């Protein structure tokens, strides 16, 4: 027995040894590449389109004399040399090209004719989702190329291919998409448009759908405490959108979109450069949702009927000699939504119990301007002033509930930028002022309030140019409802070793919760509103105050000459005071200030790698631990998955000379189980289980670029057709006491397929 066992062990050991030797040799071989040949085909482009095979082309390792020439078929083969990385491809009459030999088959290498007058632009493929190694703050920049991967259409839909932001559905009626970061809902995020606070107050829920995607140039997502320049309201992060600018944007742009649920979108931009100093742009967006869709046959529309007209006129001023820059924006929006039961007809059924229906009509006017002056002799010193005014009017009803809000807001900010000694020590300082007037009608109850705040800030930036950089900021504000308070924010970055950095941040935030506008979905239920007044200044409640702590690590690596990126981060938001939104009693929604603890821990792990040339993988795992002390007990935040997995695969073919290309994109989202607020008090037929099932959502998009002017895209969202079985409780008796559309954990709408086109004319 013992001997056979030993024998067994020995043979296993030997087998193991053999395998390891084999593995070692294989590994050794691949690393050394002793016999590896690098192959490729060289073609020449003539007159911008015709491609011919080139023979006798010189191909040699850069910095050496080791080389070869191509044969009649344009093919070459050259032994791999570990000490060299780049191949030079040289032919008389053509432009020399130098390429990275990072794979055995280099495919077709196209040389351009020397006589072509057109400038050759050497493009390095820039990752459309940039996680910076060097930024002090944890910022993810989403450029317009990344935006093209998502279906369309507005800011709320721009985050679907981005793992830093979670997109949730706020309820089963309005179809509004909720953005979450670090396990906290969007009111805890500060939205800015070109660094001016934008989606806040009355526009908190629907505002993201008021920014057309095609107007956006890029988005900067800052996780954790933001900077102090934009105010004190950000708690879990900041999302800044930069719109296209008349001087740099395309001359003309047109986008059309349609989906299988009769949603149509129209986007156009026209820019005109008036003189060297002035340029203007006119941007127009219109959409229409015409389809009466009720696939789950609960008698309610799965997606609202809607239409929107959105117009913007921008003026840009640029005087580089004298150092003046300026912007002026005018925007007007009209948005109408109708939802509820399919049979509902607003003209006859409004405020009756014939059928349950809802209308949300919004008109919004935005005027904003910026002036900046850079001292011509001191490029590091500048003064900026910006101001914005908005008038937001929403008239709405949800069944028999009425909710109107008028929000007028003024914001202004002046910043002075300069240095202390050298550009290693920079500072920004200034003052800001905010004035908000709210006028709300909640079921006939008139609520008016005026909020103002005046503050001053100072931010210091240190860059050692080697290891350490930090941004430390401090604000002092006085608000009529928020009293006098200070807001500290600190961000640090430390380079550990090559291409690795460590980040940390701490910051405080404070805000007034607009309980009705931020939780409008409550009106689409039979829940009674219950505010536990404690004498506070906003709806009888005290403002929310929280600290956010974060730490992260990023490592970039070159594995087989392709970039691999690993990142880990952890954030904790800890509330000192909060307005708790308590959904735990199915007949009520309660608002009260926190007694006890409330925190949100979030952990994220990202892995990005270019698997083969032009095939990029992004994989993310996220874990959320969000606990709130309700009056009843401590519970996990409802409708918040504890685990989330995100995968994105993107493939692009090489660009042809005219820009022709295929782009294919897949996104997979897996959401773990979510706690559903208790429905125990309801009769058994109106109850949900305690937890939702876990589920996954799959989206894809294929883009065919025909030329630099024209492209067509086709895509699908939720193509596996995952929907919530019962999205609305009590849908057969919408005026009864068990009607509730707020417990939404999965999509309502089935697979959506869309088709769109983009046409653009560039400024020469």
């Amino acid at each position, binding site marked *: 027995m013992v001997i056979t066992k030993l024998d067994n062990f020995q043979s296993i050991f030997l087998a193991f040894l053999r395998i390891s030797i084999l593995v070692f040799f294989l590994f050794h071989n691949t690393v050394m590449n002793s016999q590896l040949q690098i192959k490729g085909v060289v073609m020449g482009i003539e007159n911008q389109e015709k491609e011919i095979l080139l023979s006798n082309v010189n191909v040699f390792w*850069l910095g050496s004399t080791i080389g070869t020439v191509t044969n009649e078929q344009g093919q070459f083969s050259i032994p791999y040399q570990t000490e060299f990385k*780049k191949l030079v491809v040289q032919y008389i009459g053509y432009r*020399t090209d*130098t390429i990275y030999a990072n794979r055995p088959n280099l495919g077709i290498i196209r040389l351009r004719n020397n006589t072509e007058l057109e400038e050759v632009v050497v493009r390095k493929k820039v990752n459309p989702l940039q996680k910076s190694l060097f930024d002090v703050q944890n910022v993810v920049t989403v450029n317009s190329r990344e935006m093209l991967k998502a279906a369309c259409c507005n800011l709320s839909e721009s985050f679907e291919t981005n793992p830093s932001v979670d997109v949730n559905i706020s309820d089963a009626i309005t179809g509004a998409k909720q953005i979450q970061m670090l396990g906290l809902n969007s009111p805890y995020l500060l939205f800015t448009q070109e660094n001016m606070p934008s989606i806040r107050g009355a526009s908190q829920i629907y505002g993201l759908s008021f920014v057309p995607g095609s107007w956006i140039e890029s988005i900067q997502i800052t996780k954790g405490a933001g900077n102090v320049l934009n105010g004190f309201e950000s708690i879990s992060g900041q999302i800044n959108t930069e719109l296209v600018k008349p001087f740099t944007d395309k001359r003309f742009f047109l986008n059309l979109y349609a989906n299988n649920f009769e949603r149509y979108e129209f986007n156009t931009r026209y820019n005109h450069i008036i003189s060297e100093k002035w340029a203007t742009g006119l941007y127009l967006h219109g959409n229409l949702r015409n389809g009466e869709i009720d696939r789950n046959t609960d008698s309610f529309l799965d997606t609202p009927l809607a239409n929107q007209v959105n117009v913007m006129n921008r003026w840009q001023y640029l005087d580089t000699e004298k150092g003046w820059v300026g912007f002026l924006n005018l925007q007007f929006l009209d948005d109408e939504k109708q939802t509820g039961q399919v049979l509902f007809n607003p003209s006859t059924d409004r405020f009756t119990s014939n059928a349950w229906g809802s209308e949300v009509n919004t008109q919004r006017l935005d005027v904003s301007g910026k002036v900046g002056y850079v001292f011509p002799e001191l*490029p*590091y010193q500048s003064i900026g002033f910006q101001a914005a005014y908005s008038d937001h009017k929403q008239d709405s009803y949800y069944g028999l509930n009425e909710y109107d809000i008028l929000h007028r807001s003024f914001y202004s900010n002046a910043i002075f930028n300069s240095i202390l000694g050298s*550009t*290693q020590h920079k500072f920004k300082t200034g003052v800001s002022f905010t004035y908000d007037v709210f006028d709300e009608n909640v079921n006939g109850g008139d609520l008016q309030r005026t909020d103002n705040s005046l503050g001053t800030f100072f931010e210091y930036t240190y860059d050692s*140019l080697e290891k350490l950089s930090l941004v430390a900021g401090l604000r002092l504000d006085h608000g009529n409802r928020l009293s006098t308070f200070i807001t500290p924010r600190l961000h640090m970055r430390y380079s550990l070793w090559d291409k690795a950095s460590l980040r940390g941040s701490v910051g405080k935030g404070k805000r007034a919760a607009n309980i009705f506008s931020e939780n409008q979905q409550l009106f689409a239920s039979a829940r009674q509103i219950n505010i536990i007044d404690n004498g506070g200044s906003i709806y009888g409640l005290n403002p929310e105050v929280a600290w956010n702590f974060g730490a992260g690590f990023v490592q970039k690596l070159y594995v087989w000459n392709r970039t691999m990126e690993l990142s880990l981060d952890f954030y904790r938001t800890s509330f000192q005071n909060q307005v708790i939104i308590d959904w735990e009693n199915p007949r009520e929604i309660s608002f009260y200030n926190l007694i006890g603890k409330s925190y949100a821990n979030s952990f994220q792990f990202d892995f990005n790698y270019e698997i083969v040339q032009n095939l990029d993988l992004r994989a993310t795992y996220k874990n959320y631990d969000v606990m709130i002390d309700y009056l009843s007990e401590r519970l996990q935040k409802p409708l918040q998955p504890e685990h989330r997995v995100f995968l994105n695969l993107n493939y692009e073919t090489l660009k042809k000379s005219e820009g022709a290309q295929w782009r294919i994109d897949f996104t997979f989202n897996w959401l773990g189980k979510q706690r559903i607020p208790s429905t125990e008090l309801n009769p058994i037929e109106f109850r949900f289980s305690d937890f939702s099932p876990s589920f996954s959502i799959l989206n894809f998009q294929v883009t065919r670029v025909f030329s630099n002017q024209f492209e067509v895209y086709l895509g699908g969202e939720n193509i596996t057709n995952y929907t919530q079985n019962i999205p609305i409780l009590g849908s057969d008796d919408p005026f009864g006491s068990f009607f509730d559309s707020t417990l939404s954990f999965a999509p309502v709408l089935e697979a959506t397929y869309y088709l769109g086109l983009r046409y653009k004319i560039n400024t020469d």
Partner: protein
Amino acid sequence: MKNSLLFVLLISFSIQLSAQKKNKKVDFEVKGNCGMCKERIEETAIKLKGVKYASWDIPSKKLTLIINENKCTPLDVKRAIANVGHDTDKATAKAEVYDKLPPCCKYRDPNSLLMDHGGKH
């Protein structure tokens, strides 16, 4: 109290304006190739005491500085830059320093320019 504070502020502001030597703009050519060179040149310059601002332009090879003339001279900057491998009209880098530069930064070799193929190089 408030008035005197304002007065002090005004005085200090006007001192800054009148002492022109504190913000002297100078520019000169520095030999180099690429983005890595740019980083090296600017970093070396800005770390010198008295240098407030440094920017090296890749196409024109021109280094623009703003210096406090009471604290340093353009020659100080040229010497410091030569010490990390980059030549100017007044200071030449020693061979042993130059030889240690990465291949894409070896500006004395005309072939090195071929390496400038996008990216950070």
